[in-house]
């Protein structure tokens, strides 16, 4: 009997539950599914919308992947994304070009992660708390800067000045109102890089071994603490890059809509992919499609609030993964 892949079971279970919830909203499951799928993949604009949502999600979850594999509970992607967005906005306006903006974004995110990393590795401060706190700080920072020092010249809107055209990410027009920007190949590249790093370099090997057996790695003479710091910073850099991409590729300016919870959704995606880089694009695509689909559903069927649905599904998916993991553990022990 062929073993059905666990991820598929989990997703289907969560989706089924989701459809039940939708039915309670007065929407027939078949209708709901149709709208969702069409909203996510139906035509070129829909597909582009999905892919646009995929980019920051994928970048953040790639970073989270590295951190989690190294045994570092980095839940600060949201804050690192915002820090990167702010840095990118400032750099974009100042330099007028998108490349320094992206670099600044990555740097901003890396720095935002560096503090909790240092605290965790050198002062044993639990990174769950410190990254969570910094998420809060980043949000307040965003709120302040876009209504203060970084506000656009007319001081009417809570956002940064619009980026000049040269500072916008290059895009490709597939069709009318269906454009893809440079962020997509960047995100895919980042995922490949992360996968390669974790499985094809001693750095990645040591990180993964060190998550469970740090004493072993240290006894082998590998600089585990330094490498874990780099991994954490890399996670922050990728999240910061996500913020930068959103600013230069989508919004064109820094505003409060950047704090949309992508950083948290990325955690769900990474967990759904069970921390494997090869499964990550698909997992992220699922959530991106859900986000795009529910937005379209909302507009189409005049079901206000249906996009909250994506959040509920995120939670359900993680719970399903957790519940499923328990039986997975039993399997593993049976072998030895």
């Amino acid at each position: 009997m062929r073993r059905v892949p666990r991820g598929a079971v989990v997703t289907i279970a969560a989706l089924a539950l989701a459809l039940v919830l939708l039915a309670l909203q007065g929407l027939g499951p078949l209708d709901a599914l149709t709208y969702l799928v069409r909203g996510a993949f139906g035509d070129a604009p829909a597909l582009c919308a999905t892919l646009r949502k995929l980019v920051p999600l994928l970048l953040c979850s790639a970073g989270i992947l590295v951190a989690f594999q190294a045994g570092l509970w980095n839940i600060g992607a949201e804050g690192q994304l915002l820090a990167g967005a702010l840095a990118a906005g400032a750099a974009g306006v100042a330099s007028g070009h998108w490349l320094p903006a992206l670099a600044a974004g990555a740097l901003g995110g890396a720095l935002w992660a560096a503090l909790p990393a240092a605290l965790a590795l050198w002062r044993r401060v639990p990174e769950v708390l410190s990254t969570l706190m910094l998420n809060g700080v980043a949000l307040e920072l965003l709120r302040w800067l876009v209504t203060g020092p970084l506000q656009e010249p007319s001081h009417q809107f809570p956002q940064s000045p619009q980026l000049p055209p040269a500072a916008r990410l290059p895009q490709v027009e597939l069709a009318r109102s269906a454009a893809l920007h440079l962020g997509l190949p960047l995100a895919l590249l980042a995922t490949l890089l992360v996968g390669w790093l974790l499985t094809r370099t001693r750095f990645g090997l040591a990180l993964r071994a060190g998550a469970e057996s740090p004493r072993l790695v240290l006894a082998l003479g590998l600089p585990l603490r330094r490498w874990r710091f780099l991994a954490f910073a890399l996670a922050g850099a990728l999240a910061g890059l996500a913020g930068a991409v959103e600013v230069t590729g989508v919004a064109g300016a820094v505003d409060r809509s950047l704090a949309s919870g992508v950083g948290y959704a990325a955690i769900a995606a990474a967990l759904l992919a069970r921390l494997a880089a090869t499964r990550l694009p698909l997992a992220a695509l699922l959530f991106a499609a859900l986000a795009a689909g529910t937005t379209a559903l909302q507009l189409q069927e005049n079901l206000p609030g249906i996009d909250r649905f994506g959040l509920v599904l995120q939670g359900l998916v993680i719970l399903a993964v957790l519940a499923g993991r328990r039986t997975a553990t039993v399997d593993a022990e049976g072998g030895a």
Partner: protein
Amino acid sequence: MNELAMQAARLALPLVLATLSEVVAERGGVVNLALEGMMLGGALAAWMVAAGGGGAALAPALLAAMLVALLVALLQALFVVRLRADAIVTGAALHFACLGATGLVFERCKRSAGVTTFGELGGAWTHVPWIGTLAIVAAVLAFLHGTRAGLAIRAAGDGPEALRAAGGSPARARTHALLLAGALAGLAGASLTTVLTGTFVEGMTAGRGFLALALVLFARWNPLGALLAGLFLGGLFALELHASTLAATPGGAGVLTFVLRALPYLLCIAALALVGGRPDAAPRALGRPLVDDR
């Protein structure tokens, strides 16, 4: 000045209750990341029951809030205590689910019930929330330190082996802790609706739950500490509201607001960094999943 103090007290209420909730949960050994979600659920439930019902609907509203939060807590207990899933991940999942679910339900109700507000009753009723909260703080203190169930909870979070060796069940004690924490979280959320604003806004907890996670450290896992920490933060929030009148320049108000709002988070990180890891007052088994001894 008096107005500032009163405002501080009002703003402090949900924080006190939320921190109290987390104190109970963490004394039992669980970090409750779903606190924010529970509060939201409680806020929504309270609003739904009380909307348009006048003063008489207050008590049922509070009950409804506790019930909803209890359900979430039950779910969390199932995953964290029974299935031994990671508490952080479970909490995050429940957070998403509650955030989304409350948004969904609110949108639906807004559709069918129309906009309603809930006015505060005047006179003596304005003091009830505070008297109630003080009574609850005292009750939790008495419960934790003066009853067998409270002792079991503290043992589950500090030395589950001792509890098990004595024939108790750390799993049961942890579940109790989570349920009580849930009820308190529901009340915290209800206070947002029934005391502070009189309406429900999506995501109205605005990070207060996460803040409470940090405040527990300042409270040193103590109900009285929760009271003080909550009051302190209420003061900060009240100051922030008055920032524009306090600051000399318009731009200055922005910075001050930012500093005041970011301060709790930064203070927490600073405290963690100074203490370096596990503070002495922390329950020793905090965050550790329970293991069978066989």
